[in-house]
């Protein structure tokens, strides 16, 4: 038996799904968190003897006539897969809008049970809904629920199971629309029917038009002038708490005044490495190095950063649940609109700070195809969690642990997105037109610490799994390739290794960015495409002598070794910043490219997106190095380096210009053809 959960976005479907199934799928206090169908068995405590009951959570939809791909998943599933029962999750705080979709579901003929959700909020507002009368008017069972605290869920499950196998009569049957005008007329008739029901069943103490405290807070947070500075301060605090305060304390440990030391995670991993090294004292040095540096060092490299990343995820989850992140979309809408995007694009960018893959997947909530594709190719520009170790290492080694490096990279990310959007518009011939961004702002609510903790632990676990699988295998392979030559014998000099000789040709390509021909940087950048954390791990493994200056477990330099690390890497601070920019703004990983492929659904746009990311990352990295070196008065190294760098930048720019001219010419030809046809 299949029970489908359907309803408007942000009505609490996934929260209900989690309660019914015991799962912990991502929930958020904004519309469009769920973008795909997910399913799981009903918990035994709710199944009342029924076997094999599957709960299906569907993406939110306002109507059975879909506008977005995730809405079409819902309407297609309900129409074609024909679940046994539909549990329609209705937001009781917005009855009128929710029941529009309900009346459409009732027309399908599958038994519908209405879950009148968020009743805790309606109770707080002293609004009353007559569920008995509502049930009579709709012709289906209505159960009051509050998924947040589990109220009414057992009754809902019981009623849903009892309804299976029955039939469903529709209280309102919409007329079939043949054109837009008739569709609008049918919608108006449906709304009139719904409003009649709402006025009969609902008694509101607070009118929707009354301004409340929430509206006053919104006036400040979404203010035209204050909104962006407030957002900047909030994000700065998030990074400060996660990177400098709480996260750093958990990672590095605390020494109390009485001398008592509370070990941090990094120290514990260090101790594990030392203990294993001690156990392997008599073993072959190559094997010891493989286990201690390759395996323990590789996994520890990511795990050492875990506290920083987890604290950041916890704070972001609190902000999401509070309802603030939805306001950010409103605040940034005017900025993004100028480059052909909208506030809706902000959600993927915010999600992308955690991981680019779900960030790109979140693009499917965007209705406009061009905007959706542009957002999907631009979302990976936001520095994701995997890039944090790279930022932290370079900020620590070359910039005296200055926090401005990390924070500024996120704001540079936003600027690169705006620049990228401008490029996409030029190439596709898009002309900005007046458009309206309509988004439902969720209620502010006290953020749930338990939800934030669950979200944090899920992401933390994913981090550990990634470290124990992909990162481990990569570091192991890098270690092997760096230890052996092509004759499969151990090499004395790492420069003769398989890794060095394979990466050497690429070293020339990256030389204009770092100012030196060093295979180590090329190898780090290339392994970074598998997972960005590999950049730091590969650098630590490849640079002879760096392993003594960088703690492989925490992937940070040992105290006071910043200058030495810079010396071993033999690059300037400007080159370090340029290398950081190169790695942050080139494609994040193959998984993100796969996600782009799935969302963009066009090879032309996909390859265009990858080329844009590669070109943008390389060009920005080179320009940081070139102008930085120019201003600091340092030498450029060999003369061919800036020549090669500028050649790449010019080819990239000329390609964009040529494509822009082509699209303008095509647009002009189309306009001419249209004008001729009209005449």
């Amino acid at each position, binding site marked *: 038996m299949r029970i489908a959960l359907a309803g408007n976005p942000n009505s609490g479907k996934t929260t209900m799904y989690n309660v019914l199934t015991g799962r912990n799928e991502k929930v958020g206090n904004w519309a469009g968190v769920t973008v795909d169908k997910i399913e799981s068995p009903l918990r035994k405590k709710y199944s009342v003897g029924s076997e094999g009951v599957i709960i299906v959570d569907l993406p939110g939809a306002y109507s059975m006539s879909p506008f977005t791909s995730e809405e*079409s998943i819902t309407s297609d*599933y309900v129409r074609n897969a024909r679940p046994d029962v539909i549990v329609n999750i209705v937001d009781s705080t917005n009855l009128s809008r929710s029941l529009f979709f309900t009346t459409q579901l009732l027309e399908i003929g599958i038994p519908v049970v209405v879950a009148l959700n968020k009743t805790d909020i309606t109770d707080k507002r002293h609004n009353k809904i007559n569920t008995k009368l509502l049930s009579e008017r709709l012709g289906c069972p209505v159960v009051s629920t509050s998924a947040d605290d589990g109220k009414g869920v057992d009754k809902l499950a019981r009623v849903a199971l009892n309804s299976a196998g029955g039939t469903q009569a529709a209280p309102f049957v919409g007329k079939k629309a043949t054109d837009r005008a008739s569709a609008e007329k049918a919608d108006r008739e449906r709304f009139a029917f719904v409003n009649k029901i709402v006025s009969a069943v609902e008694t509101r103490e607070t009118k929707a038009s009354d301004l409340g405290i929430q509206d006053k807070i919104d006036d400040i947070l979404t203010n035209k002038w204050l909104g962006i500075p407030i957002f900047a301060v909030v994000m700065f605090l998030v990074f400060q708490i996660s990177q400098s305060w709480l996260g750093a304390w958990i990672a590095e440990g605390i020494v109390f005044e009485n001398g008592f030391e509370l070990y941090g995670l990094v120290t514990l991993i260090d101790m594990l490495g030392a203990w294993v090294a001690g156990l392997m004292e008599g073993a072959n040095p190559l094997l010891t190095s493989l*286990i201690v540096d390759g*395996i323990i060092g590789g996994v520890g490299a990511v795990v050492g950063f875990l506290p920083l990343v987890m604290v950041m995820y916890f704070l972001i989850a609190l902000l999401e649940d509070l309802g603030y992140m939805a306001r950010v979309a409103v605040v940034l809408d005017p900025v993004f609109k100028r480059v052909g995007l909208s506030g809706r694009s902000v959600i993927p960018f915010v999600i992308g700070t955690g*991981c680019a893959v779900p960030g790109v997947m979140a693009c499917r909530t965007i209705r406009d195809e061009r905007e959706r594709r542009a957002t999907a190719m631009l979302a990976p520009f936001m520095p994701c969690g995997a890039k944090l170790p790279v930022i932290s290492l370079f900020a620590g080694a070359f910039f005296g642990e200055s926090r401005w490096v990390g924070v500024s990279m996120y704001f540079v990310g936003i600027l690169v997105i705006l620049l990228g959007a401008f490029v996409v518009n030029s190439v596709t011939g898009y002309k900005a037109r007046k458009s309206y961004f309509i988004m439902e702002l969720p209620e502010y609510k006290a953020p749930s610490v338990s939800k934030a903790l669950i979200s944090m632990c899920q992401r933390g676990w994913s981090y550990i799994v990634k470290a124990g699988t992909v990162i481990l295998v990569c570091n192991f392979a890098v270690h092997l390739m760096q230890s052996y030559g092509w004759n499969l014998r151990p090499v004395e000099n790492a420069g003769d290794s398989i890794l060095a000789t394979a990466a050497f040709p690429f070293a020339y390509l990256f030389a204009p960015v770092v100012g030196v021909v060093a295979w180590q940087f090329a190898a780090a950048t290339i392994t970074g495409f598998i997972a960005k954390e590999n950049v730091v791990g590969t650098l630590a493994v490849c640079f002879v002598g760096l392993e003594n200056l960088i703690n492989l477990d925490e992937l940070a330099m040992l105290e006071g070794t910043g200058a030495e690390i810079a010396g071993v890497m033999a690059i300037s601070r400007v080159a370090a910043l340029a290398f950081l920019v190169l790695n942050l703004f080139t494609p994040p990983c193959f998984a993100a490219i796969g*996600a782009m492929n799935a969302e963009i659904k066009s090879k032309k746009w996909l390859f265009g997106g990858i080329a844009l990311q590669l070109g943008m990352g390389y060009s920005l990295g080179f320009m940081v190095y070139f102008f930085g070196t120019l201003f600091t008065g340092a030498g450029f190294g060999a003369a061919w380096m800036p020549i090669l760098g500028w050649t790449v930048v010019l080819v990239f720019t000329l390609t964009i210009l040529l494509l822009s001219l082509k699209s303008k010419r095509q647009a002009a030809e189309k306009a001419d053809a249209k004008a001729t046809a009209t005449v």
Partner: protein
Amino acid sequence: MTDIIAIAVILLVVGAALGYIIWAKKKGRRCIGCPDSKGCSGNCSSCQGNCKTK
């Protein structure tokens, strides 16, 4: 003897990691470990063809 144990440990750990990666890819997980990638595996079979619509 220590070398044999070390080789066994390396084979076990790397083998387990590779095994997990292959298992996860077969399951359709796009990004290993990502809690959000299990929602949609990225191949249309997980969406019963609905991914192709629109």
